[in-house]
Structures are given as C-alpha cells and as structure tokens.
C-alpha cells in the first residue's frame, strides 16, 4: 500500500520512551524518515537551583539527575568540588567510592537490560534484570538507608564505613549476579528473534560516533577505546586491573554485549577493591560552611551512561556562581536520528533503548 509520509508523535506518554521524551517522527508506512527528539518535559531548572544552594546542599539534588544511577552523579559533582577546593580524600574513602560507583554501574546496566529487552518484547527479562538489580539496591539500603536516590557520597569522603558484614554481603551479591546474567544470556544471546531485532540495527561508525560526541557504551560499541576510568583515571581507578570491552559493528547488538561485558568487569573491580580495602579514615574534615576562592573547574567521570562532566565556577562564597552539567544521555540522544533513519518504526524503540537514556539527566 502506498502511503504518504505521515507525522507520528511518539510520547511524551508513550510506554517506551523511558519517561517523558517526545519524538516527532516522520514515517513512510513503517520506514522512518526523520526523528526529532523534543526534550524538556522534566525540566526542573537544576543548574539554576544549584546557584542558590551551598556546595554541600547540591549533592542530594544531583541524585535526581540520572535517577537510575544516582550515586554516579554524586561522585561526579563531589569530585569536581573537591578538585575546585583542593580537598584530598583518604585512600579508604576512594576505595569505598569505587565499590559504590561500580555497584551503581551494575544496577544501572541491569535496569537498562530489563528496559531494553522489554522494548523489544522480551518481557520476562525485564523482571529478571530488576530482580538482580534489587539485590544491589538492598546493599545500598544497608549502606545508607536509601535505595534509589542514594546520596551516598559526601564532599571529603563517604558518609559511612564499609564494615565486615557489609563487605561479606556485597561479595555474596556479586556471586549471585553471574548466574542471573547467564539466565538472561541464555534467553537472548543466540535467540534468532533477538538477533534479528538487534544485529545491524541502529549502526553508527566510529568516526560518526566521535562526531556526534557519543560517550560510554554506545561509543565503545563502535570500537572506540575511550573509558575515563582508564584514560583519565580518578578516584584510584588506576589501581585496579580491568578491561574495556569494545564492539566492532556499533549496532544495537554490540551495545547489548558491551554492557553485559561491563557488568562482568565491574564485578571484577568491586572484588579487587574489597580485597585491597586500605585501613584509615573514610573522610577528611571539611568546613561546615565550605567557601571556595574564585576559580573554575571542569571534571569528568565515566558514569554508567557515558562521560558525565561538571563545570563549577566559584566566587569566594559558600555557593557556586555557576554549575554546568555535561550529561551523557543528552549528548547520546543527538545521534538517534542518525541511527534511526531508514530503519523501521519498530527499531526506533530498540535503538532508543540501546542508547540508555534517562530523562532526569537530559532535562535537568
């Protein structure tokens, strides 16, 4: 049937736009001609808000950016402030931060796995992924009482110590994840339908990925070796032995495999950090009212979704003059049209899922 080009409005209340993203699609029957993401439905004016809060008050608000991986936002912001104020964090605190950040990466990737599989119709994987994520959230709950918006990192260190019981529990959780992952991989890895939906879909070449500024797993799936934990190490990441998994084709299937492999690498990092947990303090004394001399700083970390950066400008008071956030989801979302063009309408949800976006971070 010949069909004229029609405009299709996907979202902001569509079940698979991961929140309140709106996509303006132009489709010819089922073939996608154009995709225009419309963002801002979750805008809360975060960056402006931060200008009116003290440096320490900002930290819990960063939880609300990428709420699937809230602790990574804490870490990104706190590291930037510490760099700005010249605060040296004890080694034990750095190790605990690595443990927590990698657990958060596990939780984020497991949640992503569930969402992504559900978008492609494998509804059981959603529950399996969330079940595995739940065990990690329980660890967070035991560590600091919160599960989703954790606020688990403070300026100058971490709020709580990792005691023996918690370390044992984390080890137990880590031991349980590979088995759950094996179940999921048995369902999906060689599944003809899954491969038909993902292999060769939403392809982006390495050079195009760099031009679009892609970061994180989507970039590495295109074969570009860029992981800040290796390339610009922060928080003692250079003391751990792990690999950066790389893809070749830059399609949805590679992004899927990359994240699964990253889960294994994160487990490796957490185990090393727990084994080598140094003795000492978990935080340094930071003045209650932290005043920072006029200066500016930009610090980036490797968040689960890509490179997360905070630019902070101080003016000598206890409040930042300006905070600007470089959010990975926002930048990764730009490449959506490039990946979707010419593909089928059904692939849009798969490709969008494979980018792993969180609207809290895009809209800020």
């Amino acid at each position: 049937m010949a069909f004229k080009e029609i405009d299709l409005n996907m979202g902001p209340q569509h079940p698979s736009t991961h929140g309140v993203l709106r996509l303006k699609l132009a489709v010819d029957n089922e073939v996608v001609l154009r995709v225009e993401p419309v963002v801002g439905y979750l805008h809360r004016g975060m960056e402006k808000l931060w200008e009116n809060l003290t440096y320490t008050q900002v930290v819990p608000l960063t939880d609300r950016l990428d709420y699937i991986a809230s602790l990574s936002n804490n870490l990104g912001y706190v590291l930037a402030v510490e760099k700005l104020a010249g605060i040296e964090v004890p080694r034990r605190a750095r190790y605990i931060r690595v443990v927590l950040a990698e657990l958060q990466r596990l939780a984020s990737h497991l949640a992503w796995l569930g969402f992504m599989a559900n978008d492609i119709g494998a509804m059981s994987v959603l529950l399996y992924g969330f079940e595995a994520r739940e065990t990690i959230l329980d660890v967070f709950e035991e560590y600091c009482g919160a599960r989703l918006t954790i606020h688990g990192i403070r300026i100058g260190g971490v709020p709580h110590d990792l005691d023996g019981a918690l370390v044992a529990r984390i080890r137990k959780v880590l031991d349980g994840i590979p088995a759950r992952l094996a179940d999921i991989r048995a369902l999906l890895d060689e599944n003809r339908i899954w491969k038909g939906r993902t292999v060769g879909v939403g392809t982006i070449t390495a050079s195009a990925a760099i031009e679009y500024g892609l970061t994180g797993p989507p970039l590495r799936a295109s074969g570009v070796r860029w992981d800040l934990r290796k390339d610009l190490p922060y928080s003692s990441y250079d003391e751990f032995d792990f690999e950066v998994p790389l893809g070749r084709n830059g399609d949805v299937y590679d992004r899927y495999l990359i994240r699964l492999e990253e889960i294994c690498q994160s487990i490796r990092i957490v185990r090393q950090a727990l084994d080598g947990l140094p003795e000492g303090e978990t935080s340094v004394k930071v003045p209650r009212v932290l005043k920072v001399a006029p200066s500016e700083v930009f610090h980036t970390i490797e968040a689960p979704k890509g490179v997360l950066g905070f630019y902070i400008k101080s003016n000598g008071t206890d409040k930042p003059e300006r905070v600007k956030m470089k959010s990975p989801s926002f930048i990764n979302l730009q490449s959506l049209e490039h990946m979707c063009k010419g593909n089928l309408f059904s692939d849009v949800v798969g490709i969008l899922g494979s980018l792993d976006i969180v609207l809290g971070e895009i809209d800020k």
Partner: protein
Amino acid sequence: MTPFVAEVLIPVGKVVAVILYPMVMVVVMIWLERRVVALMQGRLGPNRVGFQGLLQPVADAVKLFFKENIMQRQADTFLFNVSPVLVMFSSLLAFCFVPLGEPIMLGSYNLTLWIAESPVGLLIILGLSSISVFGVIFGGWASNSKYPLMGALRSVVQVLSYEIPIGLTVLTVVFVARSMDLVEIVRRQEASGVWYGFLMPVSFVVFWISGIAETNRAPFDLPEAESELVAGYHTEYSGMKFAFFYMAEYAHMVLVSSLVVILFFGGWLPPFPSVKALSFLHAAPGFVWYLVKIMFFLYLYVWIRATFPRYRFDSLIRLVWKWFVPLSLLNFLAVALGRFLL
C-alpha cells in the same frame, strides 16, 4: 424424554452453553496467563480476589463494565461501535462447530456435544476467523488515529499472509481424513489409530505457529505491540468495547487450540488407545481429554509469550513468505503423493 425437553430445553441449553463455554475459558485463560507469566518471572501475580486470584478476571470485567465508554469526536461512529461486536461475534460463532466430545446417550436421546455438525465445518470456522480481521481493520480505521491505523495495517498484512499456510496445512488434514467435518476428522483419527499430528508433524508445526500469528499473540503480537504502537488497533477503545476485543483475542486462542487438538491430536480421544495397560485412561470422559489437551496448548501460548522477544514486521513477513508458504506447499505435495500412492 418429553418432546419439550428434547426440542426446546436442550437446544436452548446448548446455545447458552456455547456462549458460556468460551467465556469461562477466557476467564480461566486470563487468570492462567497472568498467574503463570508472573510465576515464570519470579512474581506472584493476582492472588487476592478469590482462591488464588481466580476471580481476578471477573473483577476486571466488572470494572470494565462500569467504565466510561470514550469515543473521540473524529471517530467513525458506526464502524467504531460495530467492530468489537464483529470480532466477538465471529469468535463465539465459530464455537458452534467445535465438537467437545463423544455424543452422550440420555435414554433414547442422543445428546451431541456440538451445536452444528456441518460437512464443511472446517471451512466455516476458517471463514469466521477471517471475518474477525474485519473487526480489527474497522476498529483501527474508525478510530481515526495513527497508532490504531498502523496496528490495523499490520494486522491485515499479518493475517492475510498467515492464512495461506493455515489453509495449506488444513488441506493436508482434509486430504488424509477425506472430510471437512470436524467430528468426522476425529472419527477418522480414531479409526486409523494414529493422530494426524504424528502422521504429519510438519503440518502441525506450521499450523500451530501460523495459529499463534493469526491470533496476534507474542512473539507475533505486532498489531498491538505495546512498546511500539501503545495498544495497536484498540488504543482508542475503553470500557466494554475494549473488553470485547480483549475477550475475543482470548476466545480466538481457545479456538485455535481447539482446532489444533481436533485436527492433529485426536480431539476428545484418550491417548494410547492400543496399549492395554493404559486402558484406565478411557475411564475419563472424552470432554475431559479434550480440555486437558487444549489447556496444554493454551499453556504453550503463555509459555511462548514469557520467553520470546517480539518479531519485527519485515522478518515476520519474510518468515511466512520465504519459509512457511514454500514449506507448506512442499508438505502438501508430499501428503498428496503419499495419499495417492498408499
């Protein structure tokens, strides 16, 4: 038996039964699906209303019954209202031709467990299940909205494509049984001592997979893929009209399972008729065996849904035209040759 009972009460009772039976199966099926999928996914599923949540579908139905019927202003009023009825009607009517078991002798009265035995029963059922496609098309078109329209378009292409392998595989059964009468087909299987599913495994597999596609179920649930088309052709429906689509889908599943059981697995016949040691299996009435068999296939439906991702539209069509149509043609040729030579 008085003529009044034989000519009025029993026919009326049967008509009531043929409406109630699919409805009861739908209720059981909705419960089974939610519960089984939940347990497969490590959840509990509905377990509050009634024993083990058995009354949950009833509660849902009551809720839907009292819900407001919303129809947007641009909708085509007539088609919008008629399509859920059409879908439901064609599903229910087909059950008139489905034999549930051996006739029961009540004194001198022969109580048949079907409403109509027609020499072309199979053809009528296939025709009726094609009519339900019209309901989907009308519903999607009359909604005057883009997602339902795309869902309806997908549905048309999908069902039209999958009717071909269904027709070709049904034809092999007709060839071997030399009848289109469903009761006769079961009797022939009894006489020949082998169920056609074992005689013609290719026919069975193609028919079963095409049947899943015909009922728009996972992994072929593209017309109502919730992650893409929200709810497909019934996105704009609410209240009882939505419930009609929903129930018709489940009734259609029961119908396809019944057809598989009747065409390929001996309908109401108990298994292993020739094994003496297992003759106690004959103690159960045929209706029970029929139920056990269709429950197995309904369970398969649920199991498949919980396991597989969704096909993409192009691979779905490729699957039918590149694999199923040639395969069922070859199978048809082989069966015809076999029938001719043996």
